[in-house]
């Protein structure tokens, strides 16, 4: 008996009792749908995070220097960092101090408690790209200039959130109070996040020396840019070597690259996804046991049929393949239903997440991967065949005389 015959027969038996078939497949359907949903979400998450990182600049190198405490005389200052950039132009293209100030921002009678204040140099804005090191473009006005930084001028550049909510869209030339000191707004950045309070758009940039005076930051932070995403690891090495020379211990500083963080995040997501998929796989396993259970019942119910087939010349392998193909077909159909369900659910979840995050259509999209679909389908068929084998073998081994007498 050939495959098509067994396949048709399998479809026929499934159609004969649809409810039972559906219940048999349920475990597989849920398992496969879960795998599809998880891989879709994971894939969407990865794409989303990569896009965010990309926006921040994939060639960013962050340097944090904690130093060795009060007693130590060893230190690295901004000039040393500038010197590094000058010395290695093929790897490093820019540097700016990046001081997180703890300051109270106030405009008129309104306090902006969640606004972040950063002290940077004029190099934080990169003329060749027209963006800051963190990827925000200039909406209007200008960025901080050398003179502002050198003379500790009380000028600032604000993010789009402040521009809209503190100044009603007309901030240029107006002043904003930062820890009691009035700063004149000279520039506005383009919206780069979702323009909400506390987001990346709720920021003020001031000359870094001014920020240092405000205090708050622990240690020194520098933002550097590598010439390229691919050179960022080499750039990191250069900075680290320099810092090691000074401090003689790697505890005094930390250097991170966006590229590495991106990779670390990706691999973390991959691990997380693997764990979730394994959990989903348990439901595939349960689905397989469900199929085995029903197949065993089916073999018992069809003992007489098996006896008849054997009396007419069916060999062991004919019977075995009939039942295995039946189990495989059942789980394959379950798998197909699970895939469709999973894709639908992934779409629904995309919309729900977009709604919750308020990111709209260009935000998070759960994309089913071809690999995920392929693996889920393959595994479901394999599960059916694997768990169908035991009942099929039981059927194949039946003694035809006993089987014919059975009722």
């Amino acid at each position, binding site marked *: *008996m050939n495959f098509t*015959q067994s396949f048709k027969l399998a479809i*026929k*038996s499934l159609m*004969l009792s649809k409810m039972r078939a559906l219940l048999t497949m349920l475990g597989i359907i849920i398992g496969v749908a879960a795998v599809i949903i998880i891989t879709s979400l994971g894939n969407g998450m990865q794409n989303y995070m990569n896009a965010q990182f990309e926006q921040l600049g994939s060639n960013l190198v962050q340097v944090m220097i904690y130093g060795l405490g009060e007693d130590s005389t060893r230190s690295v200052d901004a000039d040393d960092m500038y010197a590094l950039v000058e010395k290695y132009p093929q790897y490093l293209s820019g540097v700016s101090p990046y001081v997180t100030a703890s300051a109270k921002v106030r405009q008129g009678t309104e306090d902006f408690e969640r606004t972040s204040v950063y002290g940077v140099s004029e190099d934080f804005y990169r003329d060749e790209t027209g963006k800051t090191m963190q990827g925000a473009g200039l909406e209007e006005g200008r960025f901080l200039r050398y003179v502002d930084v050198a003379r500790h001028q009380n000028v600032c550049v604000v993010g789009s959130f402040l521009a809209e909510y503190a100044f009603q869209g007309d901030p240029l030339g107006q002043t904003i109070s930062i820890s009691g000191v009035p700063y004149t707004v000279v520039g506005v950045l383009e919206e780069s996040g979702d323009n909400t309070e506390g987001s990346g758009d709720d920021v003020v940039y001031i000359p870094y020396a001014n920020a240092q005076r405000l205090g708050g930051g622990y240690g020194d932070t520098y933002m550097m840019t590598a010439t390229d995403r691919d050179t960022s690891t080499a750039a990191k090495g250069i900075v680290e070597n320099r810092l090691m020379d000074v401090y003689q211990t790697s505890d005094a500083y930390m250097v991170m690259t966006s590229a590495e963080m991106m990779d670390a995040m990706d691999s973390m997501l991959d691990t997380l996804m693997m764990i979730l998929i394994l959990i989903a796989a348990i439901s595939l396993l349960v689905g397989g046991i469900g199929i085995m259970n029903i197949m065993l019942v089916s073999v018992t119910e069809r003992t*007489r*049929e098996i*006896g*008849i*087939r*054997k*009396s*007419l*010349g*069916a*060999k*062991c*392998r*004919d019977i075995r393949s009939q039942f295995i193909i039946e189990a495989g077909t059942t789980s394959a159909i379950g798998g197909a239903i699970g895939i469709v369900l999973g894709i639908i659910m992934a779409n629904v979840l995309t919309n729900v997440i977009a709604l919750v995050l308020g990111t709209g259509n260009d935000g998070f999209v759960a994309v089913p991967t071809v690999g995920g679909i392929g693996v889920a389908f393959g595994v479901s068929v394999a599960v059916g065949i694997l768990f169908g084998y035991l009942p099929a073998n039981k059927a194949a081994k039946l003694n*035809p*005389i006993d089987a*014919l007498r059975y009722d």
Partner: protein
Amino acid sequence: MGHLIELKNVYKIYQMGDETVHALDGIDLTVDQGEFVAIVGSSGSGKSTAMNIIGCLDVPTSGSYHLGGIDVSTMEDDQQAEIRNKMLGFIFQQYNLIPKLTVQENVELPLLYAGISAEERHERAIQSLQRVGLADKRKNLPSQLSGGQQQRVSIARALAGKPSVILADEPTGALDSRTGREVLRFLQQLNREGDTVVLITHDNSIAVKAKRIVRLQDGRIIYDGAADDPQAVVQPQEDEAGEEARA
């Protein structure tokens, strides 16, 4: 050319705890091409056991069985399956049609396992159904037919594989006497057309429709001869007593 069926000193012994049951106790039997043999005997005499061995569903404990010159008494399951497929056509008391397959699909089954192409299967199944006069019912399910019609379908199925021997185990047992007679007449006709038929029954009135009667008792052949010999239908006294005791 030897005999079509040749059983030599065949024993079938079952071990039931301490007790051994000699279901077949030294049987010698030959059947030639074109014969119509009825195997008769009371309940427990060993008819079904004999039928299982002749039908290659079981192997003897000892002794030899040649079917069409081939020694089939020591075959493995799958080899037996092939012999059943190629050389034997079964007709059962309970028809044994597969309920979810149509009449035609049922008749095609032995051909399917013989690996015959779909086209030839259809053709031969329809021919077979025409022989039993049920070609017009080929799309029906077995449950949509009467008992007599179902038995005719099972005959068509037995014929489809062009077997050397047709083995009928109590083929009229589930039918009323009129349809039973019809089925018997049909077997007689098949025999006239050249088929070899082995009929198993406990009913003398059915056995006499065959040409030759083999009577079993306690696993032994106690009569083997022409069906029209008056000796053929004599029930052994003690056996009848035994049957009453059992009832």
